[in-house]
């Protein structure tokens, strides 16, 4: 299963790199996020083979990830009057998360506390963006809206991730492996859907350019 996921990472990263120039706003950061994830996952495999540990790469990636998500939601919220409140909340979590990574936790530990913090803020933000979509509906079918795919898959993925890491300390290693399988399946869906949202964004940009 993990091999399939690694292959998916390569495919989605190549597609995202190809679409990167044609995206705008949040989706440029989404494309970058997909590329960074693929690089980190492959780097992790190399690090495991050399140093028998990949936690340094994962700790570094969580910090990059929080900034990428900050910019993703900042662009999605750009014109909203409540963004300033949201911005303060997000920045507080970023500071806490970075501080945890660099000062409070051993860099050899898996960054699960940071992932929990990040999951919470991402769930909250994606729900707010979905709510914003309900307040300002557009004519385009919801299934052709990049924002919908991005927010719903991010919401589902991080809700599951949050649940998974909440259970992390409660389960034994075999049960954790079993849960890891769920997580891998989820990743196999998450990254292609993210890439699909990036692709939809390029189509939306093309249409808005034609429309003048």
């Amino acid at each position, binding site marked *: 299963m993990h091999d399939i996921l690694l292959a998916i990472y390569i495919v989605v990263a190549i597609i995202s790199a190809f679409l990167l120039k044609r995206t705008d706003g949040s989706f440029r950061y989404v494309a970058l996020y997909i590329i960074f994830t693929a690089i980190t996952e492959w780097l992790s495999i190399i690090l495991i083979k050399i140093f028998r540990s990949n936690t340094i790469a994962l700790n570094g990636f969580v910090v990059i990830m929080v900034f990428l998500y900050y910019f993703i939601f900042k662009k999605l919220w750009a014109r909203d009057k409540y963004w300033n409140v949201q911005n303060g909340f997000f920045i507080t979590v970023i500071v806490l998360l970075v501080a945890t990574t660099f000062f409070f936790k051993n860099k050899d530990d898996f960054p699960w506390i940071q992932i929990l913090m990040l999951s919470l803020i991402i769930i909250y933000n994606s729900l707010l963006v979905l709510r914003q*979509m*309900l307040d300002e*509906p*557009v004519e385009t079918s*919801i299934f052709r809206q990049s924002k919908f795919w991005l927010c719903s898959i991010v919401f*589902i993925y991080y809700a599951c991730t949050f*649940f998974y890491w909440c*259970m992390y300390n409660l389960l034994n290693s075999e*049960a954790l492996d079993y849960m890891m399988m*769920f997580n891998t399946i989820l990743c196999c869906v998450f990254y292609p859907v993210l890439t699909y949202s990036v692709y939809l964004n390029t189509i939306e940009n093309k249409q808005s350019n034609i429309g003048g």
Partner: protein
Amino acid sequence: MDNQFLIITVASTFLVVLLCSFIISFIVHYKRRQNEHELEKQNLKLEYERESDKALLELSEQTMRIISQEIHDNVGQTLTLAKLQVNTLSSENMINQKETCNELLTRAIQDLRDMSRLLQGNFVLEHGLEKSISRELALIESAGVIKCELNSQIGGFSFKPEFEVILFRCAQETLNNVLKYASASAITLSIYIYNHRLIMKIQDNGIGFDVEKNIKGLGLINIQNRAKILNGSCLIESIIGQGSTVTFDVPLQLLENKN
């Protein structure tokens, strides 16, 4: 051990079902909102069309009244006088009466020409808004009573001809009001683009009037209706003894000729 697997499986399944149900209910709710939004838009469009039709109807009624009044007060009266002169023709005063008849008929023809000019939009269609307004002001100034000034900054813009006629009518009607009621010695007409809107400001230094009391008279409603047709607005300001300012504010998006 088996217990843990069972808990994980049940909890994971429950979570996935819960999340999927949330997304499905979001989609359903979003579609409902989309339909409501679409309905609101259609209602607004209908309302706008209804308002436009109403305004157009009122305008045509007003125009009919003006024509009827002009025929009755000017042309009708002049022709009646001419008829009287013809009926009372006598051999001893023939030359004088013939001259009077000639004058009266010439005046009637001139009145009809003026009325025709007032109603015809051909000049605007052929020469555009700026030139038509300039010509109108020149005509007013040629009487030698009122000094007119035109400040135009719309040289590079191309507007839809049908809207140019409506805008011209707005200017014409306001100028007619100034001529009839303001006792002004100067008129300044400024027309420019500001913030994607066309602004046309007509100022006079006349006696002014109470806007609130006279809003239903003086053809002011008529002027505002014309602005409404263009999806714009018309602001009338006046200070007694200091003159009046009428400002038309029309979105450029509707006016601009894309061809």
